[in-house]
C-alpha cells in the first residue's frame, strides 16, 4: 500500500506510534547522531547523515545478560519486550538485519535476537543526500530500497512524503492516512530516487572480489595493506553486519559482549596456540569473512555499503581500496608461520 502524507500527518503518525510503542529514532546527542528512545516528536531528526552506530545495538546489544544463576539455579533473562518501532532507519541498515537473520535465525535460533526482532517494527526513511562514503548500490541495496522494512518513508521534498508499506503491519499503520498516490507522485518519486542513486559516487563490483580473494590468500599484499591498521576494532564494532561476540561470567550472571576478529585474544587459546596471531591474519579475516566465506555460504556479501567502517577508521583505511588493490593474480606466497 502506498499513501501520500503531509509533514503534519507524518508527525501525527509518529505521535500515535509513541503512544502505543517504545519509539527509537535518530537524535542529535551532543553532536553525535544516534538512535535513542524518544518521547517527543521534536527530538527526532528528519534529514541526517546516517547514525554513528548502526541499529544492530537494539538486536545484539554491546552487553547483554543471557541468564542469571543463583546457587546453581539458572534463571533466563526476561525476554519479553514492549512492542517497539525503530523510526528513521536507513535502507542499508534495514538490510543489515536481513543479513544478521541468516546468522541468528538459522536452524539454531538465538531467542534473544529473535524476540527483539519479533517485537520491533522498522519504519525507514529513504536517503536523498547520500554521503561520499556511501555505496549501498554496490551491495544489492539503494537509497530508496524498502527491503527489510515494514514501512518506507520517501521524502518527495516540499513537505510531502510518499509512504510505502512492506508488510501487513506496515499496511496497518498506513490505513486511513493521507491520500492516494497518483501517477505524477510516482514519477516525482522515481526521479528523486534516480537522482539520489546518481549522487552515489562509489561504485564497486564486489563479484570481482571473490576471485581475487581466492587467489590472494597467501599474497604478501596483505602485509602491506594491514601495516597502518592499529587493530582498534572500530570497523568491526560500528559495522551493522559484524556480529562476533564473547561470552563470560560476571557476578551472578552470564553475559555476552561484542567482540571482533581484529583482537589477538579473539582466537588465542589457553595453550598459547593462535591461528590468527599476527595483525595481517586478523586484518585479513574480516575481508575473507565478509566478502568470501559469507558469500560462499549464504550467497550474499556480509556488507550493506553503509560506509561506517571507512568513515570512522582512525587511520583512514578504506576497505574498498584494499579489495580493489588486491592483485588479481596470486603473488609470491608469504606462508604464515
Amino acid at each position, binding site marked *: 500500500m502506498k499513501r501520500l502524507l503531509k509533514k503534519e500527518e507524518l508527525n501525527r503518525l509518529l505521535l500515535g506510534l509513541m503512544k502505543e510503542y517504545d519509539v527509537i529514532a535518530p537524535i542529535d546527542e551532543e553532536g553525535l547522531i544516534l538512535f535513542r528512545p524518544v518521547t517527543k516528536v521534536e527530538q527526532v531528526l528528519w534529514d541526517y547523515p546516517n547514525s554513528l552506530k548502526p541499529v544492530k545495538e537494539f538486536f545484539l546489544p554491546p552487553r547483554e545478560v543471557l541468564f542469571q544463576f543463583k546457587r546453581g539455579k539458572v534463571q533466563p533473562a526476561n525476554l519479553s519486550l514492549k512492542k517497539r518501532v525503530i523510526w528513521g532507519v536507513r535502507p542499508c541498515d534495514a538490510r543489515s538485519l536481513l543479513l544478521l537473520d541468516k546468522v541468528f535465525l538459522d536452524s*539454531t535460533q538465538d531467542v534473544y535476537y529473535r524476540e527483539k526482532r519479533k517485537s520491533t517494527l522498522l519504519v525507514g526513511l529513504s536517503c536523498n543526500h547520500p554521503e561520499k562514503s556511501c555505496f549501498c548500490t554496490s551491495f544489492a541495496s539503494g537509497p530508496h530500497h524498502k527491503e527489510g522494512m515494514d514501512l518506507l518513508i520517501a521524502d518527495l521534498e516540499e513537505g510531502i512524503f510518499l509512504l510505502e508499506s512492506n508488510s501487513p503491519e506496515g499496511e496497518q499503520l498506513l490505513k486511513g492516512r493521507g491520500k492516494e498516490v497518483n501517477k505524477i507522485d510516482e514519477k516525482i518519486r522515481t526521479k528523486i530516487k534516480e537522482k539520489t542513486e546518481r549522487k552515489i559516487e562509489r561504485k564497486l563490483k564486489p563479484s570481482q572480489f571473490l576471485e581475487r580473494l581466492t587467489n590472494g*590468500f597467501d599474497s604478501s599484499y596483505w602485509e602491506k595493506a594491514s601495516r597502518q591498521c592499529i587493530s582498534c576494532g572500530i570497523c568491526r564494532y560500528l559495522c551493522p553486519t559484524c556480529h562476533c561476540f564473547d561470552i563470560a*561470567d560476571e557476578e551472578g550472571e552470564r553475559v555476552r559482549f561484542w567482540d571482533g576478529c581484529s583482537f589477538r585474544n579473539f582466537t588465542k587459546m589457553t595453550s598459547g596456540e593462535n591461528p590468527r596471531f599476527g595483525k595481517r591474519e586478523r586484518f585479513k579475516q574480516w575481508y575473507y569473512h565478509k566478502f568470501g566465506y559469507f558469500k560462499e555460504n549464504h550467497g550474499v556479501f556480509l556488507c550493506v555499503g553503509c560506509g561506517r567502517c571507512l568513515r570512522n577508521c582512525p587511520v583512514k583505511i578504506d576497505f574498498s581500496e584494499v579489495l580493489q588493490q588486491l592483485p588479481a593474480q596470486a603473488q609470491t606466497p608469504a606462508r*604464515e608461520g
Partner: protein
Amino acid sequence: MENIYLPHSAIVKEIISETADIKTFRLTFEDERLQKSFTYLAGQFVEFSVYGVGEAPFCLASSPTRPGQIECTIKKMGKVTQAIHDLEVGDQVGIRGPYGNGFPLKELRGKNLVLVGGGIGLAPLRSLIQNVLDKRDEYGDVLIIYGAKSTEELVYQKELEEWENSPRVKMVLTVDPGGEDQKWQGEIGFVPTILEKVNPSPDNRMLITCGPPIMIRYVLLGATGEMGYRPQQIITTLEMKMKCGLGKCGRCNIGRVYICKDGPVFTYQQLKDLGNEF
C-alpha cells in the same frame, strides 16, 4: 522454542584422577528424562559450565553405546578447567550440547582402523574405541597407537589393558624419549615416529588422529608420505577457541567453515580444500 545458551543442570557422580593435571568427570543430568533422551555421536563435544567462572568446550570421552552417564576428560589449563578440577562429587554443573559433527561412523564401518592419539587427544578417540568395541562385528581390525610425554601422563591406564585384551585390537603404547621409567615395556619415541615404524598398511583402512597440533602435523605428513595413505583416508579433529558452539559468535571460523558446527572432525582432504590457515 529452546534457548540455545541455557545449560542443563548435571551432577558430578565420579571423578577419576588420570594424571597430575588430568581428571575424568562422570556426570548425569539432573532431569532424568533428559538423561534418557540425551544422545550424541563419538567425536561430538559439549559446553561445560561452572557458574560464576565460565564455560569451555570438551569432547565427550564416553560412548553413546554406554548410556546412563556422560564423561569428559579434562586437562587443567586456565580458569574454567581449574574450576572444574576443584569440583567434588555431588557438585552441580551446567552442560549444553552435544555440538559438532562427530566421527563419520558410516565411513568407518567395515574398515580396519588405526587410531593415533597423543596426550589428552585420546579422549575423543576413547569414545570411538568404546563405540567400536561395543559393535565389534561392524568394524575390521583396530590398531591403537597412543603416546604421552612420560609414563605418568598416559590417561585411561586401566582401560588401556582392557582394550589390549579385546578381540582384534592391537595396542602400541609409547612415551617420548626420557619419559620412560624402569618398568616401561612399551615403545620409546614420538607418536609419528612410532606410527611410521609400525607402518600399518593403508589397504581398506582409515586413520584417525587426535592430539597436539604438532603431533597431528607430523602424523599427516608421515601417513600421506611413504605410508601411502590418501588424504580421504585420514580423519582428524581440529581445535579452535570457542564460545557459542553454534556457529554464531564467529570465533572458530576458518575458511568457509565453523569448527564448532561443521567440525571438529574433518578428513585431511577437507582440510586441504579449506586452504591454508592450518
